[in-house]
């Protein structure tokens, strides 16, 4: 087992890629692209363990009544992280789940996540690290118990957090009261899979009751004595900067405490939020619009060929010959639209700053606020709250920097939140994408060659969680082309190019960066090729997969989903099935949608999903994530579209920005969990991938209409004429 005293993760991250860089330099004679492709070929091996460098004692508290409190550096945004992490701890500490409490680690005196909560790597990244920490704590407890009880360590037994020997026993809580020193063991032995009692059990969410009672657990719920409400005026159009403002009317309006004019923004602070809103309307801002952007310009910039090309996958020869299948696909930009808007509460108390915030990056928020205020990092304590949704929208928290400046200017604790309109119009979006594809079916009825060009604005690049050097090393933005490479490796000739570009507004990571768009495209095109070859889409896919590794695991989920969904069996009149797959973050997924056309619109009745998760920690948590990802993906693929109109982002309100409700969402979702491994894969994001193509392929099966553009409802309407 590894020592937990690892170098900090940034160093480790760089060390990992320094190896890559070294080889890169050596490989330059052969070209940088082959090296990058080799890196992408082995991407999954690069997803590593959580690199802890914080003391074990910062992670845990043990109460006198024998409860264990885990201070989690990973945040809870609905994905069930706290429950899964609690299970890992309970297992190694030999306690029951009801003895476990999980809280967000504050950034002073508690462990800080060197990366982010995202990328579906909370459970997989903590799998070894947290079990090792808990096992070490158990051994530290035993060492102290041995001293107190006067019994050799080897004679001790542990159950429910009680250590016993010779008829005497001590709870962890009692040991903590009596112990005077703690020595962290160098190595511990982790429990074997066959001995697991808590891992693998479906347990209810650890945060269930607060969420059913409506407890004030979110960032927006924070309320402090003497707190005031700030509102930042945000540019109404993209590519627009603040110049100056006329605040003469606003500053004397009811409830206004102060209007804060900074070089780059203006904010109004009032005793209540409605008063701040009223006063904000009275401020006249002089905006400088660099350029009035229109949607057709955005689409032209996003076209394949417009950006810079990076060849990200290459096998054999290019597509050539006659009778090719060629197609063009696109996906619209979309919003995260998490239900709790962004914002924070900042309290400056003397030379200490406390930031209460729903953030996916507590460490980044801390650093950025400290830099903004010119303070040492230790002077800023971020207290993460439960997140009212994340989906990548809280991987960057510039709002906290603004709130800190406002708090400093006004000298009181300040609560600064986005309106929903701000959230839509000043947010960061899932970029629109454009794709061209070519394929050829060989004499054997299988794919002889395939080519995919995927073009997208940056998603991961520019993020504070990705070191700048990675852009140089990787070239193309793997957050933009995620899911764009071909998984069917029996195809002898493959070309995938990623086209990189920037747009005049922020584009960023959205649950499973790149995956939803690229999987929609590749798996729809796979269906086109299957029909060209005259083959059944299930059999056609199986025929292009090897019987080993990831491809075998893909085969298994395709077969499991097909069986569960009744592929090939009779369906109600007018109904049809469509299949799509993806493989991401160690998981393999197959989804089958059952659709029909009702009143001229696509109706999705049921989605069947089979996924191989490696090893399941909380099967019910996995089901919840799969159901949620399918419904969110359904909504995004069917309805959602952000556009520019005269420089403005539209729409800026729910309704016109249509999100699926109970009425539209599939009523039935069936989940089949396969476990082929001995460590957990990521499951929060991957099931978002296949849903768009599964629906599109089912629509083709039902109607013969091939949908090649997201959102599907618009594309279907356009095809109807």
């Amino acid at each position, binding site marked *: 087992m590894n020592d937990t005293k690892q170098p900090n993760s940034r160093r480790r991250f760089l060390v990992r890629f320094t190896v890559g860089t070294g080889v890169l330099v050596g490989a330059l004679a052969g070209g940088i692209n082959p090296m990058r492709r080799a890196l992408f070929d082995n991407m999954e091996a690069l997803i590593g363990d959580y690199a802890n460098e914080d003391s074990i004692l910062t992670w845990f508290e043990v109460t006198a009544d024998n409860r264990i409190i885990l201070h989690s550096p990973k945040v809870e945004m609905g994905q069930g992280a706290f429950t899964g992490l609690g299970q890992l701890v309970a297992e190694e500490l030999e306690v029951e789940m009801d003895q476990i409490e999980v809280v967000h680690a504050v950034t002073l005196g508690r462990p800080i996540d060197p990366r982010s909560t995202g990328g579906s790597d909370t459970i997989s990244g903590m799998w070894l690290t947290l079990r090792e920490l808990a096992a070490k704590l158990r051994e530290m407890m035993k060492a102290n118990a041995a001293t107190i009880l006067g019994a050799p360590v080897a004679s001790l037994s542990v159950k429910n957090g009680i250590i016993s020997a010779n008829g005497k026993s001590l709870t962890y809580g009692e040991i903590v009261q009596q112990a005077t020193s703690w020595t962290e063991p160098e190595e511990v032995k982790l429990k074997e899979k066959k001995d697991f009692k808590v891992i693998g059990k479906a347990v209810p969410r650890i945060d269930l009751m607060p969420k059913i009672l*409506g*407890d004030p657990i*979110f960032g927006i719920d924070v309320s402090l004595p003497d707190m005031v409400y700030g509102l930042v005026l945000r540019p109404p159009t993209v590519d627009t900067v603040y110049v100056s403002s006329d605040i003469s009317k606003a500053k004397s309006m009811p409830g206004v405490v102060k209007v804060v004019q900074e070089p780059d923004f203006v904010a109004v602070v009032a005793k209540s939020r409605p008063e701040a809103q009223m006063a904000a309307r009275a401020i006249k801002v002089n905006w400088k619009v660099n350029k009035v952007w229109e949607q057709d310009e955005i689409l032209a910039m996003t076209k394949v060929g417009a950006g810079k090309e990076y060849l990200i996958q290459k096998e054999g020869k290019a597509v050539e010959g006659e009778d090719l299948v060629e197609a063009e696909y696109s996906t619209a930009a979309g919003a995260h639209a998490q*239900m*709790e808007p962004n914002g924070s509460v900042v309290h400056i108390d003397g030379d200490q700053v406390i930031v209460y915030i729903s953030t996916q990056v507590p460490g980044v928020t801390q650093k950025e606020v400290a830099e903004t205020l010119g303070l040492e990092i230790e002077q800023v304590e971020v207290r993460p709250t439960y997140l009212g949704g*994340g989906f990548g929208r809280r991987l960057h928290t510039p709002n906290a920097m603004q709130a800190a400046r406002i708090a400093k200017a006004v000298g009181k604790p300040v609560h600064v939140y986005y*309106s929903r309109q701000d959230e839509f119009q000043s947010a960061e979006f899932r970029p629109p994408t454009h794709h061209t594809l070519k394929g050829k079916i060989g004499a054997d009825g299988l794919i002889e060659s395939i080519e995919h060009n995927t073009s997208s604005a940056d998603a991961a690049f520019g993020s504070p969680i990705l070191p700048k050097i990675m852009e140089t090393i990787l070239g193309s933005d793997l957050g933009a082309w995620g899911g764009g490479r071909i998984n069917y490796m029996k195809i002898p000739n493959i070309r995938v190019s990623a086209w990189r570009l920037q747009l005049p507004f922020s584009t960023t990571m959205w649950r499973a960066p790149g995956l939803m768009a690229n999987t929609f495209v590749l798996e729809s095109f796979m269906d086109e090729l299957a029909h060209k070859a005259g083959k059944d889409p299930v059999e056609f896919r199986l025929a292009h997969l090897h019987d080993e590794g990831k491809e075998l695991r893909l085969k298994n989920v395709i077969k499991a989903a097909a069986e569960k969904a009744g592929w090939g069996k009779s369906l109600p009149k007018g109904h049809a099935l469509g299949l799509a797959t993806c493989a991401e973050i160690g998981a393999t997924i197959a989804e089958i949608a059952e659709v029909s056309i009702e009143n001229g619109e696509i109706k999705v009745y049921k989605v069947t999903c089979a996924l191989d998760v490696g090893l399941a920690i909380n099967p019910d948590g996995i089901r919840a994530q799969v159901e949620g990802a399918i419904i969110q993906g359904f909504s995004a693929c069917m309805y959602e579209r952000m556009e520019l109109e005269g420089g403005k982002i539209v729409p800026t309100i729910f309704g016109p920005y249509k999100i699926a409700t109970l009425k539209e969402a599939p*009523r039935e979702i069936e989940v089949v969990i396969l476990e082929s491994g001995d460590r957990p894969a990521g499951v929060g994001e991957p099931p978002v991938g296949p849903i768009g193509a599964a629906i599109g392929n089912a629509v083709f099966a039902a109607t013969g209409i091939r949908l090649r553009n997201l959102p599907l409802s618009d594309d279907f309407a356009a095809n109807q004429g």
Partner: protein
Amino acid sequence: MRINFILNGQTQSVDVDGATPLLWVIRDVLDQKGTKFGCGKAACGACTIHVDGNAVRSCSFAAKYAQGKTVKTIEGLSDGENLHPVQQAWKEEIVPQCGYCQPGFMMATAAMLEKIPNPTDEDIDNNISNICRCGTYYRMRKAIHRAAEIKQTNS
């Protein structure tokens, strides 16, 4: 203006601009944070509460209209001892993910069940139009049917 109403069984008297959305009076003046802000335009339902038993989107309901009314929020949904059938069903089906929209959904469902004790799937589709971004609708639908069952068993 002075506005008097009953909130979760307690008489409240607040002095606010009558046009202030009731949401902010409840959250920031009376410090009950269970009712959520989602959009401010009655488009998402996160702020759903009961006013005299009717489901109301409190972000767009002026405080002056609460005068003399009985208002209930998620904090007052249970009787203090036992969970409301809707909360009980939500618990059994493990509905919440991030949890932010759930109080609005539970309030909307509780109001619907008073009018439609045994809703069909179509009734649910037509009456519960709130937004959940985590996509908990599959479990929510099961929980709504289960809540109807618990409520009928209890009564």
